[in-house]
């Protein structure tokens, strides 16, 4: 369980994170979405005690992160895949972490297998790693202490499509076992495919959060029937706001279920009934964060 309450961080005159509040529940993957520089990383740093908030507080597992006695056994963190000593071998980097938190070093080899770093990769110095390999090493490092929470900043950066799929399955599985996942990305597609809940941050503020369906709610329902006039009459009878959509359909300012009921009441057989994705998540993301992009 991760809770942020009014987290705020200023650097000089700039408020980088502004009154950010959210909660990440066990068993869920929360996607933290925003353009580069929107405040995702700073927020995550405050969760881990790397940066002190100027206002608000971050609560991890019931208290401050830095008060956890052996945090590596409860929270797995990957904030920067590049953050590894270039002169250290991959396996050794994990072994150092294992020793620090008191994890059996034999766990390291199994974990290297699981993140897809083979023996020759494990023996290489991290300097020789590609970004994708560093991400995998970072994920292994985060998983090493068998944590119940994962906090990952842009974990899909540098991964190829199979790697992204692998990551998605891994995080889904982790959450399905009761784990809590918070991951950030500046790419909608990466997050949309994994996350149960989305938080969209722009210019330091959370501009929207909720499930995919909740975020798309309000964008309307696209409905079609062969009997267009009958459908229109049924919708009007239900006093719904209707505007013409494509292909003779209608976009209705209502939830699909209510639209379905209105059609049923009017005795109209529908050929299509779905949330209007014409705007879609991508448009939403774009609109919500547009203010920030227009700034220099």
């Amino acid at each position: 369980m991760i809770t942020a309450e009014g987290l705020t961080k200023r650097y000089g005159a700039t408020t980088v994170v502004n009154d950010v509040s959210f909660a990440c529940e066990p068993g869920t993957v929360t996607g933290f979405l925003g353009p580069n520089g929107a405040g995702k990383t700073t927020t995550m740093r405050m969760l881990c005690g790397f940066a002190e908030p100027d206002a608000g507080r971050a609560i991890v597992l019931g208290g401050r992160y830095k008060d956890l006695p052996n945090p590596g056994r409860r929270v797995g963190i990957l904030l920067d895949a590049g953050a590894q000593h270039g002169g250290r071998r991959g396996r050794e980097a994990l072994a150092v972490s294992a020793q620090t938190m008191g994890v059996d070093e034999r766990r390291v080899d199994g974990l290297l297998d699981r993140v897809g770093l083979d023996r020759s990769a494990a023996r290489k110095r991290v300097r020789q790693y590609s970004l994708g390999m560093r991400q995998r090493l970072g994920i292994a490092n985060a998983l090493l202490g068998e944590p119940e929470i994962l906090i990952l900043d842009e974990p899909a950066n540098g991964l190829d499509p199979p790697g992204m799929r692998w990551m998605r399955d891994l995080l889904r599985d982790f959450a399905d076992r009761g784990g809590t996942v918070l991951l950030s990305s500046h790419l909608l597609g990466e997050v949309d495919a994994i996350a149960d809940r989305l938080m969209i941050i722009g210019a330091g503020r959370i501009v929207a959060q909720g499930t995919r369906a909740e975020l798309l709610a309000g964008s309307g329902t696209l409905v079609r029937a062969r009997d267009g006039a009958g459908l229109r009459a049924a919708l009007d009878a239900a006093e719904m706001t209707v505007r013409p959509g494509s292909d003779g359909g209608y976009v209705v300012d209502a939830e699909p279920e209510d639209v379905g009921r209105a059609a049923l009441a009017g005795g109209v057989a529908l050929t299509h009934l779905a949330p209007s994705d014409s705007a879609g998540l991508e448009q939403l993301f774009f609109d919500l964060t547009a203010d920030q992009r227009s700034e220099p």
Partner: protein
Amino acid sequence: MSADAATLDLPIAGRERQARPGLGRLTLVELRKMVDTRAGFWLQLATVGLSIVVVVIICAVGKAQDQTFRALLEAAIAPAGVLLPIMGILLVSSEFSQRTAPITFALVPRRMRVLTAKVLAGVVLSLFGLAMALPIAAVGTAVSAPDVPHVWTLPVGLLGQMELSLATGVITGVAFGAALLSSAPAIVLSFVLPIAWAALTAIPGIHGVARWLDATQSLAPMTNHLMDATEWARAGTTLAVWMVLPLLIGAWRIARREIA
């Protein structure tokens, strides 16, 4: 490069292993970090190698009175006296220049515990340094077998002073690394500042004061002979300025710093 996520076995509930990592374990981790990188490995090797070279040269061409165990030991720890402080610097500065700090402080969020472990690891390293020099000096003494009195005599107090000299040297390195948080400036300044200060002592007006803080002079007796009270006072004053002060500055900086 594929791993089957379905085979992942990550137990999530039932945590009992939440004991805070002890300082002993953290010290071992810091010792490990000193030697498991390429730079650390070569510095260790260079220290041993240079010790051997120095002793061999003295045995081959030195005077008889320089070939006693005591004199050879002083020579044998000299490379450690120069190189171990660099390891102390890198132990702290590399966390920031190599950006391992996020991992280190994520696992041990009480940052002063990490710094304490680094200081302790530095002390252990200095003991290794002395232990490594002892057999090298002993073999040199046995081989050259100089014809002078007290060939094998070494006051225990002097051995203690030698260890103190190495230990404070490494801690000074840790302190410079912490105060500057960057490898190259810390290494350069840890060499240049004491020499620059020593140059100041040549100015007649401040000679009296300056030599109390002149590391090149006040710390030299430590490995050479049993120090008298004045020498101890000078060494203590010097260490307060060159070791304790940067360590406090470093502790303050690390405690406040934003980890990125």
